């Protein structure tokens, strides 16, 4: 991997829960930790991995990497390397969908740290006054890189900030897919019905560092990290399904094998994807047109 990655491990219930509640033609704007949102939007693991590896077979031919990967055919308008930078873009996508007379909606993902940016404030206010069909999803993992939420803002529930924009704000357990879906459902319905935006504050944990080279032990203890595992979104959901008799141990093991095989295939495919030819480096700075 030529650049850094930002693992999504621990936050899976959010991307998957939201994806289960939206329609296939809704659009998503992601942040600097985009792999979960991208996979949930339907991007193929192989081409996503090739993008992170800077290969020609990647969704953006290796020009974007994790910070800007996009695939418009999947409604995945793009990750974003600037914290908070994608939030106004999601509001704008919602504006475009509204002006075109569709009932499609936009989902904006961002972290707790992003809620201190001007972009967050401007975008939520704009979306509220224009009644835009967008759901603002804060993946609140309690840290803005190394800074604890309690040290970067004076509200405990980011959902409280919704009141400043005159929109509903809801808190939910972001480690529990059923809780995520229950919170997302009315927000999605509200947006789709033309009633405007909602802010969701989904509490979760980031198991790994801000990026792969950050062991995160400078700002949190190993014991704290270990404690997250009691709230593993995948294990929580598995146990619930098993208790209801809806997922046997064999079926779960089979699912795991299926996923491992698909990842192994993706790695193989991405490794086989060639690097972009150097002669292509200067292409696509400007899209071609008659006026150029």
């Amino acid at each position: 991997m030529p650049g850094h990655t930002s693992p999504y491990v621990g936050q899976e219930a959010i991307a998957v829960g939201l994806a289960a509640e939206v329609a296939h033609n809704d659009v998503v704007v992601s942040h600097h930790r985009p792999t979960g949102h991208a996979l949930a939007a339907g991007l193929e693991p192989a081409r996503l991995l090739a993008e992170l590896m800077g290969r020609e077979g990647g969704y953006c031919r290796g020009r974007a990497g994790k910070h800007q990967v996009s695939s418009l055919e999947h409604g995945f308008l793009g990750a974003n390397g600037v914290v908070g930078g994608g939030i106004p873009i999601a509001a704008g996508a919602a504006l475009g969908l509204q002006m075109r007379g569709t009932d499609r909606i936009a989902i904006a993902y961002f972290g707790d740290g992003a809620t201190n940016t001007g972009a967050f404030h401007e975008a939520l206010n704009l979306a509220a006054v224009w009644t835009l069909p967008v759901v603002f999803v804060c993946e609140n993992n309690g840290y803005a890189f190394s800074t604890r939420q309690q040290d970067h803002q004076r509200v405990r529930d980011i959902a409280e900030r919704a009141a400043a924009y005159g929109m509903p704000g809801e808190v939910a357990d972001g480690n529990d897919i059923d809780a995520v879906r229950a919170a997302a459902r009315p927000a999605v319905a509200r947006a789709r019905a033309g009633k405007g935006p909602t802010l969701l504050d989904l509490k979760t944990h980031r198991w790994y560092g801000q990026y792969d080279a950050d062991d995160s032990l400078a700002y949190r203890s190993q014991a704290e990290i270990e404690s997250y595992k009691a709230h593993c979104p995948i294990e929580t959901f598995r146990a619930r399904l098993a208790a209801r008799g809806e997922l046997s141990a064999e079926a779960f093991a089979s699912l795991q094998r299926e996923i491992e095989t698909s990842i192994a295939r993706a790695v193989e495919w991405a490794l086989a994807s060639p690097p972009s030819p150097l002669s292509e480096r200067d292409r696509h700075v400007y899209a071609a047109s008659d006026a150029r």
Partner: protein
Amino acid sequence: MSAVTLQQALRATHFDLMEKDPRVFVMGEDVGVLGGAFGITAGLLQRFGRVRDAPISETAIIGAATGAALVGMRPICEMQFVDFLYVALDQLLHHAALAHYASGGANTLPLVIRANYGVGPGSGPQDSGTLYGALLQFPGLTVLVPSSPSEAASLLAQAVHDPNPVLFLEPRELYPTTDPLPDLPLLPMTRARVLRRGDQLTCVAAGGMVRKALAAAERLAADGLAVEVVDVRCVMPLDQATIIASALRTGRLLVLDEAPRGGGLAAEVIALVAEAATASSRRVPLRRLTAPPTPIAYAPHLAAAAVPDSAAIEAIMRELAREPQS
């Protein structure tokens, strides 16, 4: 359209563009009910409805334009002054301008941001910016600077049809003025235009400096000095071929720029021609006449003195025309 002012030409072009394409819409501060602080969007809301009065949130406006363009709209955003854009440069330079390249050519972003620029009486240090000189460092962004009503109409229409983000900078001092030259043929927006032919000196200028260059060239012609005037039109990316060809043909180059001296448009044009002259073993005397490297004062006489005036342009042209070339 010789009797039409720059303001009128821009307004009429908006009506035309919105009439022809339902994807085109306008958003910005005070663009709807008020019709824009300078009246350019007046009547659009009443006629088309597709006009959004935005909160004072430049970051959200430009970010929203990017998002709307990604789902098939063609936004035109107005910034009340180019100085208001500075707080939102992240959205323009770091998101919109990168969108095509960072998608490996897959995504296009047809959006236009309009703003007026330049020194006006009493505008003061915070409303007198030019900005374009700083934007030469951002590949992917297109920056157009019209110099007359007819150019403005043509360039704005091309910008709105273009699949790239375009910053359209209107010289505020020219708003009430009409065309200095009639019947210019259509030219692609990224090309510079040779407005006047001459063989002794090339004068490269943009926006509000162009008509001053034309006026000075006219006066010098009376004394038998033939100045070629090149209107840059597109500051980013620069039409290097037209500028270099002209400068090498006349053998002398003057660049006029109302932006502060140091870096920017004037320095880049000088560098382009210096390299080309060196490569062809030519001696091409080079001069630039710019605003000083200072903020712009509020006091009108101090502000006015910062912008190169006709007398200074004429004097430097005469001086340069005497320089030996080869």
